[in-house]
């Protein structure tokens, strides 16, 4: 195994690099088209740096008309188009296509308008996620989805991946917080999807566009919903002497009718890594810790914190701490938010997995990951969005040790299969991209994949948009001999082979 084969059967290009660049320059200024090797190098990977590819050219349009031009040129020349936001994606969704144009939206970074009364903002795709909340804070409003990379990631990328974040159990994913999109097709046509009201005429095309990983079109303008900023947030840190107990505590909190603003879990390996890095003050003897946040009015928070603490205590927490002020709340969160870089300091490389499981399967899946960790001989700290069952096991390895990256890839694939067996999914928020393309064959049956391809054909019949990503061809699944594991069933029971 190793790098997944990128190429999908896309049509033969009708123009070479020089010709494509010449045509791009007919509609874009010189500084918006990159084609020299040293200019292309920075675009060779996104946040999943284990996979690299140099694109044919990079186009960096400054407005929608230029985006349309790029699409028309590529459509006519039959050249693949790979859209790219801030390049922070973790699944290789923006990995270039060697015969394709990388369409970077980073120059389109204006907040076009804010309507504080209607509680909406109209932004360009290159705007950073956090910049929206910063710009709207003066009105007491914010944009709710907050992926951990929010200081850097772009809203356009969030649309492509349907990004979540720490607060999405209570406030929803990207798909729940967007009203309207301007969406450019591969033919260069502009579609307006959604509307300024809460729904639109016809079918819900926004549901398809959001999370489509750049396979259906490119977004040039986004109208997001803004929410009133909660007056107060406080977080409870609870320690547990076993992962099972921590998992049960999560179920108990929710069964008690509480929807925490955030509910995160970290295991001992993860807290250990984090403490060396940021000193968040986590108890190091605990097998697992939970961070349970409440937000709202001061009255609401006081009532909810008391209720949460009661449930956590009854669930066997060995220690409970409540953030006494905003500084301490941020300190508690700093550990969780820096978990990835902290692990990155312990080992040269890591893969961050992204499976989601029903919460009741937590104990079983974690035991499974532990067993796999022994089997493959690689350490694997766990951090997860416990409230919504989204796991982020971090497989630690050293790519300079021959063979270790391949072992890590196999280990990751096994974890994802474990998630599917448990009735879950291979990706909760990072997207399939190139990284999990083979596991799609495990999660979906051929007829389901065919349906995805049918949808794709309605948008992009020549399959020029981000080919080789997100949805595998049936041929690919057959060749890799992948077997579909039906949700909730044990492996090898009644498996169709193809």
């Amino acid at each position: 195994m190793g790098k997944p084969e990128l190429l999908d059967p896309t049509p033969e290009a009708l123009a070479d690099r020089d010709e494509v660049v010449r045509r791009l320059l007919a509609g874009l200024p010189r500084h918006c088209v990159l084609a020299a090797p040293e200019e292309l190098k920075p675009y060779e990977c996104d946040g999943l740096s284990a996979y690299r590819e140099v694109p044919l050219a990079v186009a960096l349009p400054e407005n929608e008309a230029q985006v349309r031009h790029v699409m028309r040129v590529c459509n006519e020349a039959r050249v693949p188009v790979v859209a790219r936001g801030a390049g922070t994606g973790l699944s290789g969704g923006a990995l270039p296509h060697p015969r394709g144009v990388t369409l970077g939206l980073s120059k389109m970074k204006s907040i076009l308008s804010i309507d504080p009364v209607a509680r909406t903002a109209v932004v360009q795709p290159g705007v950073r996620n956090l910049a929206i909340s910063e710009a709207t804070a003066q009105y007491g409003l914010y944009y709710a989805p907050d992926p951990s990379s929010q200081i850097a990631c772009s809203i356009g990328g969030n649309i492509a991946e349907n990004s979540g974040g720490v607060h999405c159990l209570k406030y929803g994913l990207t798909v729940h917080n967007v009203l309207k999109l301007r969406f450019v097709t591969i033919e260069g046509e502009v579609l307006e999807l959604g509307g300024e009201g809460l729904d639109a005429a016809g079918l819900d095309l926004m549901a398809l566009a959001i999370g489509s990983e750049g396979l259906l079109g490119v977004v040039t303008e986004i109208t997001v919903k803004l929410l009133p900023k909660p007056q107060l947030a406080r977080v409870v840190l609870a320690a547990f002497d076993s992962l099972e107990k921590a998992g049960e505590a999560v179920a108990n909190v929710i069964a008690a009718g509480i929807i925490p603003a955030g509910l995160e879990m970290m295991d001992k390996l993860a807290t250990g890594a984090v403490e060396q890095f940021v000193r968040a003050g986590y108890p190091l003897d605990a097998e697992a810790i939970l961070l349970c946040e409440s937000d709202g009015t001061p009255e609401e928070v006081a009532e909810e914190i008391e209720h949460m603490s009661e449930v956590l205590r009854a669930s066997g927490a060995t220690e409970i701490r409540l953030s006494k002020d905003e500084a301490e709340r941020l300190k508690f969160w700093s550990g969780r938010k820096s978990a990835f870089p902290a692990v990155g300091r312990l080992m040269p490389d890591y893969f961050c997995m992204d499976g989601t499981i029903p919460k009741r399967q937590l104990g079983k899946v974690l035991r499974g990951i532990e067993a796999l960790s022994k089997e493959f001989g690689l350490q694997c700290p766990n951090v997860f969005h416990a409230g919504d069952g989204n796991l982020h096991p971090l497989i630690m390895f050293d790519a300079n040790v021959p063979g270790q990256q391949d072992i890590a890839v196999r280990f990751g694939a096994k974890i994802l299969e474990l998630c599917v067996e448990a009735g879950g999914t291979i990706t909760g928020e990072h997207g399939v991209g190139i990284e999990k393309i083979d596991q799609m064959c495990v999660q979906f049956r051929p007829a389901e994949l065919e349906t995805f391809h049918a949808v794709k054909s309605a948008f992009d019949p020549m399959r020029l948009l981000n080919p080789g990503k997100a949805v595998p061809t049936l041929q690919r699944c057959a060749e890799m001999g992948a077997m579909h594991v039906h949700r909730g069933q044990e492996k090898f029971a009644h498996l169709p082979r193809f």
Partner: protein
Amino acid sequence: MIDTFADTIRRAAADGKTLRIRGGGSKDFYGVALEGDVLDTSGYAGVVDYEPSELVMTVRSGTPLTEVETKLAECGQMLAFEPPHFGASSTIGGAVASGFSGPRRAAAGSARDFVLGARVLDATGRDLSFGGQVMKNVAGYDLSRFIAGSFGTLALITELSLKVLPRPVAETTLRFEMNEAQAIEAMNRWAGQPLPLSATCFVDGKLWVRLSGAKAAVDAAVKKLGGEQPADAIAFWTSLRDQTHPFFADAATLWRLSIRSTAQPLQLGSQLIEWNGALRWVAAADAESAHGAAQSAGGHATLYRGGAKAAGIQRLAPPVLALHQRLKRALDPQGVFGRHRIHPEF
């Protein structure tokens, strides 16, 4: 029963016939055209899986909405999109296939927002699953949410996994006398503040505001907002949700305008406003004025009940219409699941 449905679909495809998927039939009044032989899903009922601590219920599409809601209420939970019951026969499949949401929509989200997964039979009778039973799932295109609101024109929904939420601990309704412009201003202003607003409605010169959540939060909001506390509040919100309120009963034709919440009062006659101003019901209007008013307020208008339905549908921009037609062709090339229910042109 899935096999019977699949056979019916395959036979219809072979004979070139059209099927009209129908749960309880409570929304037969809606849509441009009812075409084809009824495929009745109401026999395919029952809760498949429900674990309150997961906040997920998996249920067969023919299950009566009342049964779903009763089961949830027993565990202190609810369908937060507050789907309308247009009669006792309403099913959960119909609630999602219509995509209709009730008074809580602006605060909590729409029917589609709460869909986590769907098991469907496609136009060739294949049994397919999209999405899942988990809150976060970005594997593949989001077809389970896409199917919500498609009125059975893309696939037959056989099973749904829905996100459910705890019922609020406390709920109080406030009522204020004011005119329409003042009400639109107040709804938007309050929606922009950290208040536990769960529904708003302006009708007959009164603004109704429902507050739901933690007791302390509701009490604090009551103190802050003032107003009177009407005795018949629960009945009022139910009559709004199910459209049994006199405003709806008296309307010969009923237009639904989904627009920018801050849009100034529309010059279209008698109205009822919901969703903090984003939903305006109009008792009588001509198509041209309704569509024009909606469009200039960033939204669309639909003739919901009565009148000439085809003319009541807002036309789509040509490239958007073409995409709808291509998607319909891609998923149901023969038109087994009928055409024209939600739009005269696909």
